[in-house]
């Protein structure tokens, strides 16, 4: 029985051999333009999808593979039968995220209602990006929709033409009924998802930076929740007793991941990554250096050892064990800290808005994840059905109502159900920071490289090295990167 498989494979090998010289001679261009040779062959044929085949209706009749989005209306009856995309297969790449964890439990509703088969493929954050990039770069990807971080990959993917401009769907009344209520999405979130007038995705996850603090420890020391960074530093100093393994402060200290959580410090000191107008790097301005210095000092003097290789998982673990008094990080990780099954200090932990610096409290307030449609998808209309469903008010309310994910719809935040699973002080901090800065990392194409450059200053500051020297060097490197950015 294996013989047949074996013969088939040998045959495949023979074919491989036959085709070999061609790709060597002409490397495939990196652009997203799908190779014409791929177009006629539907890609969903061979794979046994997880969901049982809902129908035998041939996919080709319902989803014309090559038609441009605008022209697809013709073959469909405008009276819109209940399931115009019945039998379509969608391959959707998502990140391991509470949003996905909950969505997969309600996915059968969507499949039943539309007859569309959906395969959700989940990856860790970095692996997701690597996977998407390779597939899109090599061309011929079968990805229909994907989760994406607008601030990290937004510009990069847009520049390479890997997104469908969702405005084409939003503005088409036939595809997007009024009940979808696009205007309900927070303006800032839509702004983040927009690159050069193109709507790259629908925002699904929002977050702000907040301060988590131990109410009991602060109270015992006669302290209030810090309102300024100076107060934070004073409290951290007072609450640190290294002989008892008690520390006043923690935050991500690992260069690259720390950049986003450092951003609120930078903004609150009046600094920024670079000047948007002149494209001049501003990592070594007095404001920036003061912010880096404070951040380094908090880590060096009041944090547990080893923060320079700590991202949030390690920081969370330490805080949840009760040995740290204050912790600045994203409000999206609150479940790790406020859930009694995950944290020993859940009841004793409070949440407040990010402490103010010389320029007031300026936390980031960003859209960390969005849902996008791949330009190379052959099922764009069906994919839009999915995106529309997953970002509809009903689903966002469900997601938020179970506390799985803070969404981007204003009406859901106004709804008591939408807030019910979030602690009151968390909601208060969320509301107070909603108008913060719309980015937590420099808005460039080469975000990964930029974060690594900025990370070197953070590492130097934590290690107690010369911050100014590190900032000057990083600023020069960053300037080089800015100059190399495509216009």
């Amino acid at each position, binding site marked *: 029985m294996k013989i047949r498989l074996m013969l*088939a494979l040998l045959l495949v090998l023979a074919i491989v051999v036959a*085709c070999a010289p061609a790709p060597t001679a002409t490397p495939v261009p990196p652009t997203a333009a799908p190779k014409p040779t791929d177009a006629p062959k539907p890609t969903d044929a061979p794979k046994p999808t997880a969901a049982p085949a809902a129908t035998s209706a041939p996919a080709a009749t319902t989803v014309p593979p090559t038609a441009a989005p605008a022209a697809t209306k013709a073959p469909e009856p405008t009276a819109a039968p209940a399931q115009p995309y019945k039998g379509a297969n969608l391959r959707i790449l998502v990140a391991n995220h509470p949003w996905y964890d909950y969505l997969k439990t309600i996915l059968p509703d969507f499949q039943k209602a539309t007859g569309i088969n959906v395969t959700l493929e*989940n990856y860790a954050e970095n*692996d997701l990006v690597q996977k998407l990039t390779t597939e899109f770069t090599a*061309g011929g990807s079968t990805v229909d929709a994907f989760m994406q971080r607008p601030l990290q990959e937004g510009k990069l993917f847009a520049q390479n033409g890997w997104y469908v401009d969702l405005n084409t769907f939003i503005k088409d009344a036939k595809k997007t009924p009024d009940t979808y209520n696009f205007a309900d999405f927070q303006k800032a979130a839509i702004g983040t998802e927009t690159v050069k007038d193109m709507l790259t995705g629908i925002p699904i996850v929002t977050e702000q930076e907040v301060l988590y603090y131990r109410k009991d420890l602060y109270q015992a020391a006669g302290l209030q929740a810090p309102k300024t960074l100076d107060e934070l530093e004073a409290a951290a100093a007072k609450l640190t007793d290294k002989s008892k393994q008690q520390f006043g402060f923690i935050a991500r200290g690992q260069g690259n991941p720390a950049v986003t959580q450092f951003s609120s410090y930078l903004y609150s000191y009046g600094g920024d990554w670079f000047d948007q107008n002149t494209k001049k790097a501003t990592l070594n301005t007095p404001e920036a250096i003061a912010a880096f210095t404070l951040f380094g000092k908090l880590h060096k003097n009041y944090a547990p050892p080893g923060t320079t290789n700590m991202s949030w998982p390690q920081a969370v673990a330490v805080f949840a064990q009760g040995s740290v008094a204050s912790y600045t990080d994203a409000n999206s*990780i609150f479940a790790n800290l406020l859930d009694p099954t995950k944290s020993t200090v859940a009841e004793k932990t409070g949440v407040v808005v990010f402490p103010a610096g010389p320029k007031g409290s300026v936390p980031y307030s960003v859209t960390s994840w969005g849902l996008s449609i791949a330009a190379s998808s052959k099922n764009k209309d069906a994919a839009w059905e999915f995106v529309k469903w997953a970002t509809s008010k009903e689903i966002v309310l469900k997601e938020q109502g179970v506390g799985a994910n803070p969404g981007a719809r204003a009406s859901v935040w106004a709804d008591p159900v939408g807030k019910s699973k979030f602690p009151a002080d968390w909601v208060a901090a969320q509301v107070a920071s909603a108008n913060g800065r719309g980015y937590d990392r420099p808005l460039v194409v080469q975000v990964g490289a930029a974060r690594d450059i900025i990370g070197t200053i953070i590492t130097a500051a934590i290690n107690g090295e010369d911050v100014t020297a590190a900032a000057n060097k990083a600023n020069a490197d960053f300037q080089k990167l800015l100059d190399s950015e495509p216009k």
Partner: protein
Amino acid sequence: MAKPQPKKRTAAQVLGDVIFYVVVLIILGFFLAPFLWMVFNSFKTPLQIAKMPPDWIFTPTLANYQNVFSSQKFGNYLWNSIVIGAGSTFFGLVLGLPAAYAIARYKQYGIATAILIARIVPGITFLIPLFILFRQLQMIDTYQSLILAHMLVALPFIVWVMVPFFESIPQELEEAARVDGASILQAFFQIILPISGPGIVTGAILAFVFSWNNFMFSIQLATSNTKTVPVAIYNFIGYAQIDWGGLMAAAVTITLPVLVLALFTQRYVIRGLTAGAVKG
């Protein structure tokens, strides 16, 4: 090793033995500790895992394993790993055995070098080119693509193990068969292969294990239908959550099959790992 033990043991010898066993125990402890810690923690809740000093006595929870098998569907991933491991091993043998035989018999060392180079090329080199290749062949999302990729690991290893093995088979055996009128093909299939069982088992087991453990090819070429276990372990690391209990249970689930396999076929595994370094 062959020194005869004197019948009467002096106090010094007893002491020597005690020291010996203590040292052996320490060495064993070093190699075993991570496994014990992994198993131990796989029965704990996340809170208990991060607790220091640890709870040595606690009520074990099976929640982590339930999570691994029910909500994360590790059953599927295990099956994928088995299919891909078996496939790449099988085809690695199909291609590797004749090649190794020719290399051993006809001193085709040039070919040997070419095949062994696959072992030294950094894995990252393959990621994008192979994706392009499989895309061209419409093979994305199939077991075949992963099997072919994993053969890049299996084939050189099988050749590496089998060449010295075939060299150790006396040429007279084959020549006797040839005198009796057998073709080379017949001699290979009827004389050489049957007595090569131990060598083949050795190569096959290790090729399977290497395929099982492979991370880099799998993460790039696998899709939800063909995901293998080392990739699936990352399911426990999320955007704002990391589940150490689940991670440890998954780690146990992943390593247990290969460890059991290795233990039951110990003799062959040791032979394979020491192949090429020790004569005979």
